[in-house]
């Protein structure tokens, strides 16, 4: 399952973050690394972006970016 498919309250352990370019680096720097716990907190009123919780803080990212984050089954 991918982070973008999670509903508010859902989440899990990160299995993989796709992309080795700048975006992948930025996501990982912000704490979205393999093995980290992550969950979707809420979705913005217009359906995008998402608010997620990772490393005990709140981060906002778009569904397109959350799609790169694969969760452990």
């Amino acid at each position, binding site marked *: 399952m991918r982070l973008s498919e999670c509903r508010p309250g859902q989440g899990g352990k990160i299995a993989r973050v796709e992309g*080795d370019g*700048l*975006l*992948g*680096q*930025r*996501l*990982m*720097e*912000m*704490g979205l*690394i*393999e093995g*980290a716990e992550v969950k979707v*907190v*809420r979705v*913005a*009123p*217009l*359906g*995008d*972006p998402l*608010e997620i919780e990772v*490393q*005990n*803080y*709140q*981060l*906002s*990212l*778009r569904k*397109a*970016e959350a799609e790169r984050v694969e969760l452990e089954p």
Partner: protein
Amino acid sequence: MSTAEQATPSRESARSAQRVRRVAIIGNPNTGKSTLFNALTGLNARVGNYPGVTVEKKTGALAPGLELLDLPGTYSLAAHSPDEMVAVNVLLGGLDGEPRPDLVIVIADASNLQRNLFLATQVLETGLPVVLALNMVDAAKQAGITVDAEKLGAALGVPVIPTVASSGEGVQKLRDAIQVYLGTAPPQPKWTWPEPLAREIGALTQALSVDRFLAARALIDEGGAAEDVLCKKHDAARAALAQARARLKAAGQPPAKLEIQMRYAWIAQAIGPCMDRHPTGARLTDRLDHVLTHRLLGTLIFVALMTLVFVTIFVAAEPFMDQIEAGFTWLGKRAAAAFAGTSLEGGTLQSLVVKGVIAGVGGVLVFLPQIAFLFCFIALLEDCGYMARAAFLMDRVLRFCGLSGHSFIPMMSSFACAIPGIMATRTISNPRDRLTTMLIAPLMSCSARIPVYGILCDTFVPHEPLHGFLPALVFAAMYFVGILTAIPVALILKKTLLKGPTPPFVMELPPYRMPLLGSVWRRVWDASKAFTVRAGTVIFAITVVLWALLYFPHSKEIAVKYEDQRAFLRAEDLPEEETKARLAELDKQEAGAHLRNSVLGRAGHCIEPAVKPLGWDWRIGVAALASFPAREVVVSTLRIIYDLGPEEGGGAEEEGDGANEAAADGAAEAPPENADLAEKLQASTWPDGRKVYTLPVALGLMVFFALCAQCAATLVTIKKESGSWKWAVFTFVYMTALAYAGALLTYQVGTALLG
């Protein structure tokens, strides 16, 4: 204190022998870095620019001979935005004329330790002494998080000082620690780099004989600041870096991923024993966000809040503006009284002082209260954390024009002034997004439009329906004109000139916090000061030039002609009353003749055919021309035009010795600012007696000023930030074209509908 005492015996020689030592402060955004900077330096910060780049450089005195340097907020030393590049460059000593700091303070938010320590571990590798300020320990405790500073310090190998920058707690201990650790050996990082990466970094360090930190950062951050520095030092660096990266990628070991995983893994095991975490129920931030980012409620609150901000600026600033207006009216009267009876009475100097300087500068400074209120709101919204939520709510909307929520804050700031807005685009790392935001930022109605909207709304929009709120609504509508125009402009730019993939939107949503009055006040003070200085210098100069363009050549021929007519009149044997009336009539005609003959008057007449389709007469044309340096100048131009110039044709009964009389009338009714000008505008007519300022003309004029690029300072800022005049010229051309089209459409459609 201790340094001061040490320095006393031979202060002079110590000063000259020893250079000023420097401490840099670095940290994630939203950690209270500015507050700590203020707490450490007091109120003596100096703000400037780094050489060659436009990133703001803030320094202050920490102690005698010790300077504190505020680095831009960053999450990582893998720098990609201009702000982050500067932070890294300072730490590397890569900026010309910027020696490496002698010590680095890393500020970390105690309630968000993992991510904050990520940057801290990077800074620990710079080879500089480090002191960690563990900030906001009070907020962390409230959230159920306690950190053992001593254990953390032992784990990291650097002193850790718990602080609450907002209350000053721990600040003295931090000062002491800085003094103790200055000049000591740098910390030894306790983590081990993963094998393939460590090998490549080691090889680069040896081959290029450079610092290990520089080699590591250059290898990891492709296209970053460290790579630049390294490649400037060594011709061989580029090839060596490319080969090393290729080897790592071939082995399935991307360097950035290895580095980041190493750090987070080390942090997780290191802080375990130092941190106690018992989250206390649902956090306040979470409960607030539940409402403030709610699908329906959140959106309604957002719209209501933005409306409230602008209505408040319009209403709450008014009493203050009346005071300033009254002050300048009094000053004008005093000045005129001082000239009375002297040989200078009615001469060029009196005209310059009273009608040029006092009326001109006063007409601009009157908007100071509105600017102060707006900056107060922006500072409050930013400091309490709502700005990030606004970006969260608006991202989908901004994405519609190819931008991201990151552009929201520069755009929002542009409502105060496009200059700080354009400067705020530095936080947008994608260059195409940054440029697009910069080019549309001036379409947001800035505070300089407030005078134009204000006087036209008050004067020409009927107050009757809606209990007097109609002018305020039209005022608000002008903001939407700018916003609604910006969307297609951005969209077209992103589809044509600035084409490229949509950039990421990764943004922290910081916890809500009580804004600090001190820092809000500082923002308001800085903005007000900047505006006042601008009014006192640039706008003052422009006002004087404008007065001159309207006064000179002040032809002798005209003066002599009217003097002859006066003499002729006096020689006639008419009743005294009639002589007086006819003399007054001659004075008006003479003033009119001088104005029509003036440099600007002629220019205005020349462009009248071009602006007539907008419903403008030559005076509006002159005012629009004259407002090129800054929009707010249009008000002082109109003031000068109407103070000096009698009405042509029908409006003569409005004449009289102008400003003072009208202002005195105004004071009795207590109308808003520029009441005297408002009266003149209402009375202004075409030669055939039709009113110049009908509602469609006023609306068209507002649309023109909503969309035009009449602000030299903005254009200069765009040039500076984009690095090329090309974009400044582009902005001026496209905005002027839009402004003309918008005013034409408004006037023609408005006239057709309203008659």
